[in-house]
């Protein structure tokens, strides 16, 4: 049992060491590393818009439904 645990321990250390030694940085993103400055800014801004827009729309729909619900509750029977 102790020996198998030792084996697993060394295996883990070996794999971790491989991850430290083997990889190198790959500048693969076409926008971040080979695009122009304008492209980078366009990418950042449109990404921001695409993140904010669905959240804003969903929040608006929920608020609209909540207002409708409040109005229907306050209506006299």
């Amino acid at each position: 049992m102790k020996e198998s645990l030792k084996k697993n321990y060394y295996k883990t250390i070996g794999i971790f060491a491989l991850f430290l030694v083997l990889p190198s940085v790959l500048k693969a993103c076409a926008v971040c590393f080979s695009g122009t400055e304008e492209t980078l800014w366009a990418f950042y801004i449109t990404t921001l818009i695409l993140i904010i827009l669905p959240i804003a729309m969903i929040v608006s729909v929920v608020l609209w439904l909540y207002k409708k619900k409040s109005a229907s509750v306050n209506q006299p029977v």
Partner: protein
Amino acid sequence: MKCLTLQNLLVAGEVNLGNRPNRKPIVPSAVFGMVVFIVTEVMFFSGLISAYLIIRSGLEEWPPWGQPRLPIEATAFNTFLLVLSAFAVYRSRNLLLQHKQTKAYKFHLGAITLGVCFLLLQGYEWIQLVKYGMTLSSSVYGALFYLIIGAHGVHVLAALLVMGYGINYFYQTQHQGRISEYLLPIHILWYFVVGIWPLLYALVYLV
């Protein structure tokens, strides 16, 4: 603040739950469904617009050299027609709420006619652009133009078909007095299709 669960907000339909009285939904399912659909379509167009902006920002010259000039003035007139159709729908809706169904029907037909004119004029412009050499494969400029404007055109066509289907409600006597409720999702779709066009026109044609 009460828990904002969807069930809580929508309220079950006209189902009798024992000791609870029947209640009308606070938002008709058709209207809610149309709103959800429009949210997804807004994201679709946002994706197209963001792709357009990113690609365009990477090119020094826009439009690229050798591409035909877009018909800005003719499309401005087209935009006017489309916006007029939205006013026709708005007027039709107001008349329906006043129970003036014959007049509302005329405005509804007018909106459809203006939409058809918009599509036909856009089609004519496209034929001219193709004759001048701007196609989907001629350049990234042509590809983006036909993709974005074409996507909008397909939406206009679909909305026109739905508006045409809405004419049925004016003829069915069992719906008299409630036509405005049945047409509301259709009108919302038309407002969306008209509302997004000025943004696309400004982005693709003007800027």
